[in-house]
């Protein structure tokens, strides 16, 4: 495993907390009733409320885009703004864009299916089709900002965001880019929500505002988080965190991966959920059981995941990281750990500077 630190110098997000540049504050949030879907019965979710993208990103034309593309463009732009990166001062062919997603542009995909149901496959909309492609969000970020470096859209069964971070760092390490914008997230749609419901995965909190405590299931969420990765001493000085490296696997021993990443115990453990919808905190338990095997003593502070990010499931990694850093839980070597059914895990090492 090669380590070559890169710096996270900017955060941007479009989440149920609203669009934001930098870290978040006021992290209390309740799910809200879904009103955007005309035929929906009373259902609740953590939702991104409508906003005007052009007010945040002057010149952005998003009317025909999937919400995921729109949010990706806004979140990436806010991350660039937060990092203070002047794109006119750098070579835009050296800026990579990586987007991690579980479901891609699912809203316009459903719209395309709807037009096929109503008009037949011969009567679908040519404007919609290209916007259904999974790589449309990353494409719009590149197009708007004139970024001509590698442009990637990645997925993973559980850890799409973690995969994108690792691949972005790899591009920088191999000199294939100087900067990388990493974006991760998903949008909710009627078919996705209904899939969760039919599968029996939802929390009672999706149906009533005062659910019983410790109920099983999860509340679906949506949104996008973006970071700017860059390397070099100047970037390190103004970074939220250094991204050192990591490992993910379909199955295996997270304890070994944690040992490889951390010569001594981490100071912080950021729980990144279980990579699929969850309401508990499996990674914290996994870390505790691993810690005994890996370190002689461990008093790492565990920063539990929040339901608003757990509900984002497959692409939640950057949102978990944003929330963990926003809680300003401390500094030092940090493990971001996600676990999933079947022994899958993602373990990332970060270095959080003291503020």
């Amino acid at each position, binding site marked *: 495993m090669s380590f070559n630190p890169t710096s996270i110098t900017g955060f941007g997000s479009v989440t149920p907390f609203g669009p934001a540049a930098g870290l978040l504050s006021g992290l209390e949030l309740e799910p809200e009733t879904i009103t955007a879907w005309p035929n929906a019965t009373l259902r609740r979710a953590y939702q991104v409320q409508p906003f005007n993208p052009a007010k945040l990103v002057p010149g952005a034309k998003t009317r025909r885009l999937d919400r995921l593309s729109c949010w990706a463009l806004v979140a990436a732009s806010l991350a660039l703004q937060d990092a203070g990166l002047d794109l006119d001062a750098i070579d835009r062919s050296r800026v990579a864009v990586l987007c991690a997603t579980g479901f891609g542009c699912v809203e316009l995909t459903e719209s395309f*299916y*709807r037009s096929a149901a109503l008009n037949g496959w*011969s009567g679908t909309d*040519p404007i919609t089709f290209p916007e259904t*492609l999974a*790589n449309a969000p990353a*494409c719009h970020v*590149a197009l708007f900002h004139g970024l001509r470096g590698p442009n990637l859209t990645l997925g993973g069964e559980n850890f799409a965001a973690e995969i994108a971070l690792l691949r972005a760092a790899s591009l920088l390490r191999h000199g294939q880019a100087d900067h990388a914008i990493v974006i991760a997230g998903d949008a909710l749609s009627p078919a996705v929500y209904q899939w969760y419901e039919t599968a029996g995965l939802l929390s009672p909190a999706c149906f009533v505002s005062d659910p019983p405590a410790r109920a099983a299931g999860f509340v679906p969420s949506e949104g996008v988080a973006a970071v700017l990765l860059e390397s070099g001493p100047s970037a390190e000085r103004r970074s939220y965190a250094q991204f050192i490296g990591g490992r993910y696997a379909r199955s295996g021993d997270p304890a070994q991966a944690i040992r490889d990443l951390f010569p001594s115990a981490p100071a912080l453990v950021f729980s990144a959920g279980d990579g699929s919808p969850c309401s508990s905190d499996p990674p914290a338990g996994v870390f505790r059981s691993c810690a005994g095997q890996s370190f002689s003593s461990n008093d790492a502070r565990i920063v539990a995941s929040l339901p608003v990010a757990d509900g984002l499931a497959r692409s939640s990694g950057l949102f978990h990281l944003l929330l963990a850093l926003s809680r300003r839980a401390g500094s030092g070597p940090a493990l971001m750990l996600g676990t999933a059914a079947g022994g899958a895990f993602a373990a990332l090492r970060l270095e959080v500077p003291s503020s």
Partner: protein
Amino acid sequence: MLDPAKTIAVTAIGVVSPYGLGSAALQAGLLAGKSCLAPDTELFPGFSGHVARVAALPAIAEVERYSRSDRLAMAAAEDACAGLPRELLRRSGIVMATTVAGLTEIEPEIAIDPAAWYGKAGLARAATYPISRVAASVGEHLGIEGPACAVSVACASGAIALALAANMLLDGEVPLALAGGSDALSAFTASGFHSLQALDPSPCRPFDKSRRGLNLGEGAAVLVLETLAHARSRGAEILAILRGWAMSNDAYHPTAPDTEGKGLASAMRLAMEMAGTGIDEIGYVNAHGTGTPLNDVAETRCYELVFRGRSTPIPVSSTKSHIGHCLGAAGALEAAITILAMRRSALLPTLRLADPIESQEVEYLRGAWRRQPLPAAISVSAGFGGSNAALVFGSPDA
């Protein structure tokens, strides 16, 4: 002198193409100049055009859990991994590209009443929708426990999967990587290209002045990549060296390529620079060559930019004229074809190319295949969203 620890070797190729299962069938079909494009009216009601179908797909257990794209990928991966030790395979990584994934398994009615559709079709079919499922299915099928990464970058996906797998190997993340792409024919994508008027109702004619569009195909290719040092240590046969790879974006238009081909040229130059190959050392370009009016002109301009000053025109062909445009699998299939061409010292033609786009710098190959030693060749891919990728392969003997 190549550093074996930092050189990427291709040690196996698994293919499911419209020619059938295996790279031998692919090579035989290409050398015979056989076109797999056939008239089709079944893709969706009202569709009438030519497509290249995979006729017989090997049976895979638990079919319900897997989409057609999954099963194409699983069959190609199984073909690629036939000789690999199980323990090595278990620790390997997977990078699989797709654009279609499980769209084949979902019907339009899901958008009208999702609950009713799940009630009728069940949840398993919709669970094949995420792009990650293809890589995961390969992992499940072959017992691979290492990292599994999905790539979806439109028609550049398959080539980009190979590039990312090469990076993973250089990073020491895995001892061996299975990388490629898989896409099935689907009503969804056929309808989309139909709506854009991008399909040629006749068999496509890439790089011909009379070209009218593309024909869709389906298939999968999986290449086994490892460092040269690792391959030598286990006595693996080296089929080719992946000497250089690069990715770029046009940042020009959501669907149209940069008319000057500058983005693709940038990827090609970077890949050739990484490979250390000059313009005279590249003996063949396996082009993206879709047959659409815009793409083929932009690509020609690109080759003129990259190969200006070459001692002879650069030989170029599009094998999409044989097997159609396999979308997310195209880049991987064409990488496999480029390697097969090198190993057979064969310059492959573009079929049905009667009146090529004029260019002083480009020799558009047509007619029968021609024997010529190929120490190095390049496979290029491009896609909606402006993404480009270039892969430079070298002979292991060069």
